[in-house]
């Protein structure tokens, strides 16, 4: 075994012993739930209780118990987190495994959600409201009548699924064309109104601001900067004239404005990524390892 191999093995063993000791002593990574009875609104029906996650410090209270499935889940989540973090050391089988799980789970997740919320709610419940009301969606409003116009989106859906067939996949383009045409139309209207007209409207500012105490220098300067900034950036993105002379100067100013914009974007992105990492590390240290307790969830334990 190589030197790094030995080091890794030693580290793993130490970590394993640590986890065992923690488990044996104070415990860690346990999830507590409380069973709350659900009041069934139909008489004669069997009632059931809903397990709601509670803070571990409430472990002595009535109905509070350890949920073994959620405890296993938390450990699983911690392992997945560590697997992904191991990518920082280098691409490795653990990371690849976690990534493979992620890809499969997310595709499955999206499909299930699309089925229940899109297809059942919006298609089936309009084509066969009585059937759906008596099976999947008892709460479907009585006012919902059969709307046969929804045969059309059903047809489009079938066409779309033709893509999966080895022959006739081109038929799916008809559905796709509807999809694309509708998006194009709606986007055209939305973007022209909000991103063009309204942005110009918001840029129309008085270059001299007079407040209650007379001439307001800083507000005036601010408005002037915004207007000059927008115009000079637009000049930079103007492709019909070469950037020479005055136009060149203005577009240079424009690129400086853009650079400040990008600098701000840079700073905010860095901030965001760090926040995500902090949340993951907090999960490991708080929910799993129980070494910190920032939200006082195990106070006095």
């Amino acid at each position, binding site marked *: 075994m190589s030197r790094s191999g030995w080091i890794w093995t030693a580290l793993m063993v130490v970590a394993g012993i640590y986890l065992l000791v923690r488990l044996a002593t104070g415990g860690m990574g346990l999830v507590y739930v409380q069973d709350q009875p659900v009041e069934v609104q139909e008489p004669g029906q069997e009632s059931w209780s809903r397990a709601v996650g509670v803070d571990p410090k409430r472990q002595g209270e009535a109905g509070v118990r350890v949920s073994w499935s959620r405890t296993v889940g938390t450990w699983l989540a911690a392992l997945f987190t560590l697997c992904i973090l191991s990518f*920082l050391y280098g691409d490795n089988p653990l990371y690849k495994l976690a990534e493979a799980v992620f890809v499969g789970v997310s595709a499955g997740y999206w499909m299930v*959600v699309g089925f229940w919320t899109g297809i059942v709610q919006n298609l089936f419940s309009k084509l066969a409201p009585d059937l759906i009301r008596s099976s999947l969606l008892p*709460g*479907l409003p009585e006012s919902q009548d059969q709307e046969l116009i929804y045969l059309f989106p059903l047809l489009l859906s079938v066409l779309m699924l033709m893509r999966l067939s080895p022959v006739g996949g081109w038929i799916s383009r008809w559905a796709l064309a509807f999809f694309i045409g509708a998006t194009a139309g709606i986007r055209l209207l939305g973007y022209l*109104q909000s991103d063009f007209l309204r942005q110009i409207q918001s840029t129309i500012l008085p270059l001299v601001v007079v407040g209650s105490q007379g001439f307001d220098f800083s507000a005036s300067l601010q408005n002037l900067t915004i207007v000059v900034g927008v115009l000079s950036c637009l000049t930079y993105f103007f492709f019909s004239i070469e950037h020479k002379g005055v136009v060149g100067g203005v577009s240079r100013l424009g690129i400086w404005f853009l650079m400040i914009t990008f600098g701000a974007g840079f700073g*905010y992105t860095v901030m965001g990524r760090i*926040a995500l990492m902090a*949340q993951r*590390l907090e999960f490991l240290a708080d929910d799993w390892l129980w070494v910190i307790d920032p939200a006082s969830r195990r106070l006095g334990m």
Partner: protein
Amino acid sequence: MNLTEFFRNLDRRWIFLLMLLSILIPLLFGLRFPESPSPMVLNVRSAIEELPEGSDVLMAWDFDPASRGELSPMAAAFVRHCAYKKHKLYFLTLWATGGPLIQESIDILNREFPGYEYGRDYVNLGFRPGGEGVIKVVVGDLKKLFANDVDGTSLDELALTRNLKNIRQMDLIVNVSAGYPGTKEWVLYAATPYDLEIVGGTTGVSAPSLYPYIPGQLTGLLAAIKAAAEYEQAVIDLYPALMENDTAQEGLRRMGPQLLAHMLVILLIVAGNVIYFWERRKGVAS
């Protein structure tokens, strides 16, 4: 081996380690700093605070677990603030992965605001696929897409939604978003065409591109974790009882790791550039 060579060949895993430590250490020691809300955050707060009690507020939670670290402190603070004002809350999401995150917000209501009753004070409409398409529909006729709430109960049977035609009846839209579809789409297809009031909370990545809509089309924006912390503080300033609630200060305690990690990034940029220019000068000299 000289210094520049050492730095050039430095394994980047050491830098990764530095970054992890700079986040982990403040976390372990519970490092926190005071926050004073900026004017933008106060704008957002007053948009909610100045609504009459019991106003209708749409809570559009368009984010996923991947950005939960940045956004759930905001979402939680929005929920608490609205609940103190006794607003009626209508939760929905345009992200397939957002449903359970709405549940997290509802758990806060159940835990901390026992007076809030489902169907009378708040409702969970859940998710519908279609992105901006959903927005285009709910501004006209909400029940065409949302005939039932998330538990399958008809909206006609809930007191809160019986007379709800569309979201133009909302007094405010609160949107927490991590990208597309999100704040931009709500501004484009709901707030702008119908002059609805909207405030947003977004990730650091998407925040800068939303500033152009302020204040005309977007009343205010919470940008990234810093704004979340300031907003938490701003709500605590109004409702000091929250001071006792540690779970209501997730954003505030994140600012400890944030400070150290930002400093590390700056230090690394400066160090990298110093080495770069030193090398270049040496190259010119020789």
